[in-house]
């Protein structure tokens, strides 16, 4: 099930979502070996950043709530990591974030010089007051970040969007117009909050956190459906995909690739191969190809 995505051919349509495992070349290689078509490094920021204290991730049974808080060594402190990644035999997306248009540009320009296969700009993380989602909820700031970054990178640019935008399709179109090569949707939903009623305290140290997993899948499918209508660039659809049938549904909404993150919690690291196999099985049982079902939910009647 080889699949073309921009300038690369991937072994299957599964993508490791940013923020899941992606901390080192070794673990990314393991995820690749576990069947993943395209892996994403944890978001890289302008400065060294610890992220939030624990608790940072809680399993709510229907998915996770997290406020890990964008930990990053900082883009200038990753030379060993880049040296190791130079000798990889698998494609990677490097995710970047910033606190201003200039920071996005600066980080992305440097990261681009390290030759990842793709750069993803995260304008959608809900777990920091100064970074991420603040840019992705507004058409003008989204466009400003994308056009600034597009000028300085030499690899295809993916923009990761937030479902908190009042009209995510409108943001996606603005990103496409500003030069984005692909859209990734959605980042975690929220922020939400969980309060422990015995101690009367929010459980997450950051108090608020983004929701992921099965509970957000209908929102993700709707977002991808709306974006597909608005843009002609490919979409990485993610949010709650746990099985091959979930992935098929996301492709029918309009996704070219399917991102997987929280499902690692529920089905282990080999969830990528499992989902790719389950997609194959479903397609062959229905005598269909991926191309046949892409955007199929947009059909007449």
């Amino acid at each position: 099930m080889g699949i073309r995505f921009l300038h690369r051919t991937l072994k299957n349509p599964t993508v490791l979502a940013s923020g899941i495992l992606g901390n080192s070349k070794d673990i990314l290689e393991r995820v690749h070996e576990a069947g993943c078509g395209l892996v994403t490094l944890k978001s890289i920021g302008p400065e060294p950043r610890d992220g939030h204290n624990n608790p940072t991730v809680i399993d709510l049974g229907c998915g996770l709530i997290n406020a890990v808080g964008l930990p990053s060594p900082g883009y200038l402190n990753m030379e060993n990591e880049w040296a190791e990644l130079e000798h990889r035999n698998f494609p990677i997306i490097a995710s970047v974030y910033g606190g201003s248009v200039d920071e996005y540009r600066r980080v992305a320009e440097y990261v681009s010089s390290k030759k990842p296969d793709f750069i993803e700009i995260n304008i959608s993380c809900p777990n920091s007051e100064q970074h991420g989602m603040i840019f992705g909820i507004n058409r003008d700031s989204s466009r400003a970040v994308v056009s600034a970054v597009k000028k300085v990178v030499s690899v295809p640019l993916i923009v990761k969007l937030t479902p908190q935008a009042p009209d995510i399709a409108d943001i996606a179109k603005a990103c496409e117009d500003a030069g984005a090569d692909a859209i990734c949707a959605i980042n975690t939903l929220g922020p939400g909050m969980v309060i422990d009623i015995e101690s009367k305290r929010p459980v997450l140290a950051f108090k608020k956190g983004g929701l992921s997993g099965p509970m957000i899948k209908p929102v993700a499918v709707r977002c991808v459906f709306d974006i597909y209508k608005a843009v002609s660039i490919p979409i990485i659809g993610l949010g709650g995909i746990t099985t091959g049938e979930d992935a098929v549904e996301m492709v029918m909404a309009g996704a070219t690739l399917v991102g997987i993150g929280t499902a690692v919690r529920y089905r282990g690291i080999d969830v990528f191969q499992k989902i790719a196999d389950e997609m194959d099985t479903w397609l062959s049982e229905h005598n269909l190809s991926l191309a046949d079902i892409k955007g199929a939910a947009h059909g007449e009647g």
Partner: protein
Amino acid sequence: MTKPVMDQKPLMLRVMENKREAPDYATLFFDHNLAFRPGQFVMVWIPGLDEKPYTISHYTPDRFGITIEAKGTFSRRAIGLTKGNLVGIRGPFGNGFDIRPGQRAAVVAGGCGMAPLATLVEQLPGDTTLIHGARSKDFLLFPDRFALPREICTDDGSLGHKGLVTDLLDRRITNGGPLDMVYACGPEIMMYKIFQLCETRGIPCQVSLERYMRCGLGVCGACVCGKQVVCKDGPVFGSEALREMKDFNKKALLKSGKEVDLSLYFSWRCR
């Protein structure tokens, strides 16, 4: 009522007893039946402060305990908790030790590395060799706890052999009967030396690793060591995994995800 959706939010338990074990060591006891295997750990939340991983050091069907060494901000606060204080528990997480019936085993503990091994020792047969090293005799954790004899060494010679646990293990392998398994927990350099000794002597071993953790669920990647996710694939790793683990006794990630030498990592962890 039974919850229709099974979440894994922290289970709020009250401290039932705080037992001072040694200078800087205390055990907190909770009355709860935890489904548990020796070597597994729980995430311990002090509301308003932080949440950290601790192995279970005491287990009965209606009570469990975690033993804490006061090192940093969190652990200093934790050893000061008293009866009635509320603590959140998530878990248990991780794989635990692999125990095979009929095996002849040696258990090697360094310092508070005795904590995860204690419940294991209680499940192993009477001919198990128990080797325990500590800074000095005052820091020997659980001195009267086990039925089986323990071979002791201290850094300062205040009790037992003056020297390293590996000296005692080497002597046991050379002079005692055959061994099928060595279990170890302690400083990573100690576990590495034990692994090397076991490799030389052709004995399989299992060691319990420590890395900075966040989720405990195998998703966030904070605790990766080589290709292993310590909170999920570990914290116990056997010889086969250790042979492939190039960061064992070498590298670890800081909270930012920055990979550093182990010495820098441990000086940061003890703040």
